[in-house]
């Protein structure tokens, strides 16, 4: 690596520095746009006691679900979980902690975390279990709760293309939480389908500027589909 070149060659290098007990922010919605090879590397590495901030927790044999097998996850901060049997089992056994967070609040917690904003007020969750114990303020006659932002020791992100400087573009709805995750990691690792030279991506189309990105790696992806729905042609 030299100058702004962020490209690395191995997944071992991609997750170097990840230690037991760290917090990892992961992009993805369901199985769409998940950093599947970075997750596989965390599994191979065997890091434990991890806190994951991710909208979902994958399925039994794909996505973050694979990290449940060896009990690598201590806590999930998510809006919707439980698409897998192992998850349910570990939750009920008290081996796994879950902090359910409304989806928009979760996205904003990452965005604010990456932008240096420690907390924000939102109407979402006021008067519900989510608002319990949180500071309430009234603005213009409406009640809002104070939500704290989130940053991670690592952010793991799935992009479509990146240039060697770490400028990233996403493809279709595989974008989802990835751009916010990218801003909120002390070390942000992006895996992409294609790496191009600086200048090949138009500056106006860049969705994650390279300033947020520490490491870029090219991977090959299974891209599993969770709900295959079709219409007759």
């Amino acid at each position, binding site marked *: 690596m030299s100058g702004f070149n962020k490209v690395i060659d191995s997944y071992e290098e991609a997750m170097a520095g990840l230690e037991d007990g760290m917090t990892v922010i992961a992009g993805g*919605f*369901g*199985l*769409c*746009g998940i950093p599947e090879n970075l997750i596989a590397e965390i599994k191979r590495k065997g890091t434990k006691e991890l806190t994951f901030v991710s*909208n979902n927790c994958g399925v039994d044999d794909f996505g973050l679900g694979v990290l449940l097998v060896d009990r690598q996850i201590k806590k999930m901060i*998510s*809006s*919707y*979980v*439980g698409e897998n049997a192992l998850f*349910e089992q570990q*939750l*009920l056994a008290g081996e796994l902690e879950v902090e*359910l967070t*409304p*989806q*928009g*609040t*979760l*996205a*904003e917690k*990452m*965005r604010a975390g990456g932008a240096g904003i420690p907390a924000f007020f*939102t*109407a*979402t*969750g*006021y*008067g*519900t*279990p*989510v608002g319990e114990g949180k500071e309430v303020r009234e603005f213009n006659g409406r009640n809002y709760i104070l939500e704290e932002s989130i940053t991670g020791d690592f952010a793991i992100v799935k992009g479509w293309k990146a240039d060697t400087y770490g400028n990233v573009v996403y*493809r*279709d*709805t*595989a*974008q*989802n*939480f*990835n*751009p*916010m995750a990218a801003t909120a990691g002390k070390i942000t690792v992006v895996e992409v389908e294609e790496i191009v030279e600086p200048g090949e991506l138009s500056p106006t189309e860049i*969705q994650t500027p390279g300033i947020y990105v520490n490491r870029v790696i090219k991977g090959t992806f299974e*891209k*599993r*589909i*969770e*709900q*295959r*729905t*079709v*219409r*007759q*042609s």
Partner: protein
Amino acid sequence: MALSREQMAQRVARELQDGYYVNLGIGIPTLVANYIPEGMEVMLQSENGLLGMGPFPTEDEIDADMINAGKQTVTAVTGASIFSSAESFAMIRGGHVDLTVLGAFEVDVNGNIASWMIPGKLIKGMGGAMDLVAGADNIIVTMTHASKHGESKLLTECSLPLTGSGCIKKVLTDLAYLEIEDGAFHLKERAPGVSVEEIVEKTEGKLIVPDEVPEMVFE
């Protein structure tokens, strides 16, 4: 007779207006997309980051990177836009979505809604529902009027943990269309062949019944 799921979707579709941006929840709300009136332009918002959701893809069009909030493969219509989750919820929480349709377990006379959690059962999460009810001004809740055991879901006070407080003004059940105002349900329309008495009997919360309650008409 109680409305079928399709009839409920048809009735909700009558609330659509030309040029509306609409978020449809999972279940009956999703079916509303099948009843957008001919010639009307409506853009469907999917909270994972798609404005202008189209029909399911054909076998040839399937793309793992194109899904909706229910994680189903979808397409985008001409004029659609795709964006991040933060942008998506800026639209929702900023009040930019014209109509939100979602299901519920219970609603009450103060416009509270419970839709995400039944204590004692596995809790999977609220997804985007809390953001949707907090951010939208125009929400229609679709639900059955009573449980299978005949217990009312239109209550004086929700018994389940809330999704949002004081945010629901319109409810379509399989028996009636009602609006919530001043701490009561107001009966506006009834399903074809359903008596006012049956609706009264199955509504636990305070219910205001006008002299005339028109029957819904379906072709």
